[in-house]
């Protein structure tokens, strides 16, 4: 017995082969049913009528317009929420002021609110039965059932994405680096660009990637405010619903496959950024101020 275990690590809790095998099998099985199967079924359905049918479905003018609208929405909403995230993180991590913790909680609120509630709420601001609706109509400004409404709903839903990646990291990094830069004579902008930003760039990008994925995939909030006008205010997720309910299953899945590819790319980017220290795994290890990922630059 003793000879057999020489040089091996003694077993930890749950290391017995039976437990190990059972758990791994169970987890892989459930994971395959719940997560992998949906991924596969999307592509199977998308190509069920063949490659040319897939191409035709994607090439439909309404689908192309939905893709276009989704991209435009992301191009507007993501930069705005990135700027907001950076400003918010700078304010709440580099300064002490009364209400600071409350502000952090408020910034995170959209994350916990049902997208439907967000959509309905926007209706009561800019809709005809809302606060500014009549005035907007009088001035002939269209916000709801048009691009601005879609962008606003997307902004609400994804407002916390960049901030919530930056805040814990910048909190952990403290203020020493900025104080050091300032004591050496650097201006505020200079300090931000050459000291703060380089040290949070992966976390920032991480937040941007997640924000973008959510903007492009948002369904509930946008479906309330967009009006679902085919070829005009239908974003890609809304267009998928429309096709699906029209019994154009292959077309719906073809459109869905585009968003699925986006999701897969997002996950790959996420993993790559996590290796560079962004995201959840970094929050503990980056707490020490002078530690950076080894081998980042030779």
């Amino acid at each position: 017995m003793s000879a057999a275990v020489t040089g091996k690590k003694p077993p930890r809790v749950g290391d017995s082969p039976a437990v190990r095998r059972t758990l791994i099998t169970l987890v892989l099985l459930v994971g395959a049913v719940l997560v992998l199967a949906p991924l596969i079924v999307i592509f199977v359905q998308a190509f069920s009528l063949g490659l040319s049918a897939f191409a035709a479905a994607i090439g439909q003018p309404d689908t192309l317009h939905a893709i276009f609208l989704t991209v435009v929405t992301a191009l507007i909403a993501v930069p705005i929420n990135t700027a907001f995230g950076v400003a918010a993180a700078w304010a709440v991590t580099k300064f002490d002021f009364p209400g600071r913790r409350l502000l952090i909680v408020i910034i995170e609120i959209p994350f916990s609110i049902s997208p439907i509630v967000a959509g309905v709420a926007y209706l009561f601001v800019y809709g005809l039965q809302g606060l500014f609706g009549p005035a907007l109509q009088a001035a002939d400004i269209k916000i709801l059932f048009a691009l601005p409404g879609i962008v606003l709903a997307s902004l609400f839903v994804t407002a916390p994405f960049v901030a919530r990646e930056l805040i814990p990291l910048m909190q952990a990094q403290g203020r020493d680096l900025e104080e050091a830069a300032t004591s050496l004579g650097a201006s505020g902008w200079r300090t931000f660009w050459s000291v703060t930003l380089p040290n949070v760039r992966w976390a920032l990008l991480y937040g941007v990637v997640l924000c973008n994925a959510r903007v492009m995939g948002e369904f509930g909030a946008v479906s309330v405010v967009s009006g679902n006008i085919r070829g005009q205010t239908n974003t890609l997720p809304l267009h998928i619903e429309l096709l699906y309910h029209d019994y154009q299953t292959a077309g719906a899945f073809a459109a869905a496959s585009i968003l699925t590819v986006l999701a897969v790319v997002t996950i790959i980017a996420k993993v790559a950024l996590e290796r560079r220290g962004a995201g959840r795994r970094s929050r503990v290890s980056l707490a020490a101020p002078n530690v950076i990922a080894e081998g980042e630059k030779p």
Partner: protein
Amino acid sequence: MKIRLDQVVKTFDTFRAVHGVSLEVASGELVALLGPSGSGKTTILRMIAGLEFADGGAIYFGDQDATAIPVRERGVGFVFQHYALFPHMTVGENIAFGMKVSKVKRSKSEIAARVDELLKLVRLEGLGNRFPSQISGGQRQRVALARALAVDPKVLLLDEPFGALDAAVRRDLRVWLREIQEQLGITTLFVTHDQEEALDLADRVVILSEGKIVQEGTPEEVTRRPNSAFVTRFLGDTNRLQGQVGGGQVQLGGTAVAAPGIRDGKADVYVRPADLEWAVEGEGLSATVTRVIDRPDHRRVLAKLADGTQIELDVPPETRVLRGDIGVLRVHRANIFAA
């Protein structure tokens, strides 16, 4: 550059960190701010740097009122406790940063030459292309110093400069910092909680407690003539005995120790372990040895007086003393404060 603090006050929320501190540091002087944690020493240093603003009082650099000058324009070199080296910049880039952001424009070659010069000064030639994560703690400390010196500061401020280093590195760096400071002649203040470090390094030591200066003076003054029980205890191991002052003297086990200027009555007598002598018999406080600890340069004897008071004393290594021995203690020197 001479520095003067005049009745400086700093309050954090409800907690008062610094209570009206006044202090003068002569040009070229090396001064230690020494105190336990929470004594306000780092806050004072940060106020001199402009990293905190005083709530009251004034800070002068030379004859100029610097109280409101922001840190960017104050012209101080600040070495942070954990160095705050920019992790994404090389050692060279860290040192060059202050020159690059300066209003005084310097050419690239000028900056490079200055970086090389500073690397040589802090004995890190050839490490300019390393990242902070690739060098040792002691090396980081020296990079932090070089970075602070690169902008030709009028004043050098160091916050617990050796706090994060192990003992051997710490001793080396201490000697070296003293050399550099003398070579540059720059007015320097540093904060420490380590009395040995303060006494080793500084021309003058300022001892703080609870946001106030309790004593300042040369290492000799504060060690030989501590003005309070707090300073006495803070500067090193000491024994506390109860005594009775009468006629400028205190009687301890048959020997009289001078207590000049102490009013008659009860007094606390502080005696350092090295200021006690062990004898087998004769005049003195009788004591029983409870333990003997051997150290490289002396033996520390733990003993108990007749009234149960625990006493520690240092005797020469060759002294023969064993647990259970009974003998007498003679007091050579003591600091006495009215109780």
